């Protein structure tokens, strides 16, 4: 501590070490927040041969299946209109930079035990925008590896990643089941 440079160096090093501790504590405090997110995804029943009794009691409903075709190369493709209602506000803490949410369709085929196709995603930087209602057709194409989609039962899962300002990222999901594709192309 005998010279200016020595003291300045010692102070800078110690200050950065304490800064690292502060950020670790901030990240650790995220474990104590209570999270109660909720979501619903709806599809219309009017145009599809859905089992209306099955879907009636469940919170998840598919809005509309726009078209369902077989591509020239042989893969099935579906276009859906989704009505997504979600309240992710309780996920936000003081250490949250943004929440990345996406909806994926999950189903099983003879070739793959789990297929996950991402249909829509969004980056939500502010807590106020995390409670939303949106009606859109799927942002990304729902294409199967093969032609297994006729009459297929599938789940729509809302995944989210809570991205922090410093530290650990938390990810979780809500699985909504009970959706079914038509038995024939249209």
């Amino acid at each position, binding site marked *: 501590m005998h010279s200016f440079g020595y003291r300045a160096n010692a102070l800078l090093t110690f*200050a950065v070490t304490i800064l690292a501790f502060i950020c670790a504590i901030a990240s650790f405090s995220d474990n104590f927040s209570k999270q109660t997110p909720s979501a619903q995804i709806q599809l219309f029943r009017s145009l599809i041969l859905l089992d209306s009794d099955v879907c009636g009691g469940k919170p998840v409903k598919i809005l509309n299946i726009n078209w369902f075709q077989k591509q020239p190369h042989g893969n099935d493709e579906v276009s859906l209109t989704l009505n997504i209602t979600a309240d992710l506000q309780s996920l936000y803490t003081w250490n949250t930079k943004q929440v990345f949410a996406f909806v994926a369709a999950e189903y099983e085929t003879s070739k793959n035990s789990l297929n996950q196709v991402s249909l829509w995603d969004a980056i939500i930087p502010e807590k106020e925008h995390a409670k939303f209602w949106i009606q859109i057709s799927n942002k990304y194409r729902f294409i199967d590896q093969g032609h297994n989609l006729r009459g297929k039962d599938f789940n729509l899962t809302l995944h989210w990643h809570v991205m922090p300002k410093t530290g650990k990222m938390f990810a979780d999901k809500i699985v909504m089941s009970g959706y079914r594709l038509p038995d024939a192309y249209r």
Partner: protein
Amino acid sequence: MDWQGQKLVEQLMQILLVISGVVAVAVGYATESFRTMMLIYAAGAVLATLITVPNWPFYNRHPLKWLDPSEAEKHPKPQVVVSSKKKFSKR
């Protein structure tokens, strides 16, 4: 800066930085604001820099007592004697 001053500076620096860190986390968590935490810590770090890095006079209250030059002349430095018997020779 003298020895006592250096010890004081080291202690002050550590205490000031740790306290700013603790206060920053506490206030930031209570106000749910990450920005507040960073600002308080930055202010604390700047304060610690201003207090400990420059060579303030109050760090020099126990100055070292160097030997007076007139005293030093009375006691000349001992000379190193090189003896010829101790010459190292190869055979």
